[in-house]
């Protein structure tokens, strides 16, 4: 009975910190122990990376999909389904959920893959560093129009979303703070976009233009100075509201469903003590996400939250594909595009699998 409970708890951990696991894996992990498994998940570098060469052997267009979103989807799905570092991919999804961008505007899937790569790389690192990286990320700059944020004509889109959606939430700042933050990010842009014809998409690169930066004095969240964007981020991460906001996001994603984000300024957290514990770790560790996740996964509030989270479309699609062992790319025969419809969830038909999966991922065709 105790063994069965160990399996059930391990299954819970793997559903949340990953995309579920089959019985063989659960038994192996239960034998290894819960805390040891948490540590392994928190240190993805101890596990082999996804074999991208096999992906590129069969789907070379997925390397730089440019204007072919289905091939970009193949790349992301391949990582999600085949990773041996499930929490790394889960955190990439988490940050993509927080720092949401999309090809509908960006129209350059190479850049979206690059951004997902940043989330993989820094998703369990320091939140302050990740926020700064995203502030300098050309995909985000274009998505939120900071390339149109000039010293002589301020565009508040990035400045507002930084405070509202990415760090503190509504109610923790004033309209003046939005304006002042936006001023601090003037001149943060990327190299001039080249028309995509005749050579296709090209890599975007961050560029700081001092002549376009408003270097004047600013007053932001009670601080006064000639701030630039990095100063703004340093002030933001020190705010108690920032710790609460990030930790509530983590709780909502990994523990139990919360009210939707716009309601957080009026709806108290589902479990205030849990948020307090996560918040304390966030601040004590100087914004180290790995430390917060360690507390979260080892907590009783997490262990007792089984089946209190509605699976996201990504969890449904990826978890199912991993469970049944589809999309492995391991069998060359399945990559010859000769397989028949009953075996469509094999290598050659990943574009179709991804299309169906991505439709579900988008949520547009999925009943809640």
């Amino acid at each position, binding site marked *: 009975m105790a063994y*069965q409970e160990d*399996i*059930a708890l391990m*299954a819970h951990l793997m*559903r*949340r910190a990953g995309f*579920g696991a*089959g*019985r*063989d894996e659960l038994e192996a992990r239960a034998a290894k122990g819960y805390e040891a498994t948490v540590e392994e998940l928190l240190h993805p570098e101890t596990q082999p990376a996804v074999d991208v060469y096999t992906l590129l052997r069969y789907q070379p267009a997925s390397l730089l999909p440019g204007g072919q979103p289905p091939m970009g989807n193949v790349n992301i799905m391949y990582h999600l389904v085949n990773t041996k570092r499930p929490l790394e991919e889960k955190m990439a999804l988490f940050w993509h959920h927080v720092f949401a961008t999309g090809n509908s505007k960006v129209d350059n899937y190479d850049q979206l893959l690059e951004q997902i790569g940043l989330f993989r790389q820094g998703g369990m690192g320091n939140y302050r560093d990740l926020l700064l990286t995203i502030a300098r990320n050309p995909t985000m700059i274009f998505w939120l129009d900071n390339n149109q944020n000039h010293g002589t004509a301020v565009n508040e889109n990035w400045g507002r979303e930084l405070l509202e959606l990415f760090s503190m939430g509504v109610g923790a700042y004033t309209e003046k703070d939005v304006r002042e933050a936006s001023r601090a990010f003037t001149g943060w842009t990327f190299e001039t976009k080249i028309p995509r014809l005749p050579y296709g998409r090209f890599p975007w690169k961050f560029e700081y233009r001092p002549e376009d930066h408003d270097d004047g004095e600013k007053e932001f969240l009670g601080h006064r100075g000639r701030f630039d964007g990095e100063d703004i981020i340093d002030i933001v991460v020190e705010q108690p509201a920032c710790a609460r906001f990030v930790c509530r996001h983590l709780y909502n994603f990994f523990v139990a469903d919360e009210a939707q984000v716009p309601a957080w300024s009026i709806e108290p957290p589902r479990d205030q003590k849990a948020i307090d514990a996560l918040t304390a770790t966030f601040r004590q560790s100087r914004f180290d996400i790995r430390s917060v996740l360690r507390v979260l996964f080892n907590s009783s509030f997490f262990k007792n939250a*089984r*089946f*209190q*989270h*509605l*699976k996201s*479309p990504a*969890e*449904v*699609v990826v978890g*199912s*594909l*991993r*469970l*049944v*062992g*589809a999309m492995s790319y391991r069998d060359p025969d399945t990559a010859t595009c000769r397989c028949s419809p*009953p*075996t469509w*969830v094999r290598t050659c038909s990943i574009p179709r699998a991804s299309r*169906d*999966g991505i*439709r*579900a991922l988008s949520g547009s*065709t*999925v*009943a809640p």
Partner: protein
Amino acid sequence: MARINFVAGLVGDPSLPGVRAIIDRLKTKGTLSPEQLVDGCLDLLGPVEVSSETRQELVAQAKEWGQTGWASETSSKTADKRVGEMLQLIVATREYQFA
């Protein structure tokens, strides 16, 4: 419905290795009663926790099939199919939508 159909289309295919692994584990238990088939599938799909009402509905369907066993080639094919169908019923439950 899209998410249920997506998952059901996968777990109902006994040729897929993960589904095969579930069938092979159930096989080691010998001939299964309807209750054992339901509980075995719930266990190996998660374990998934379902309400007593949901379990009763699943058992009622399994009872229509009778016992599930792999004693002969013919019964094995039927048993594989039933396991696949039971997995499809489980992934269509309300409880399976939660993690």
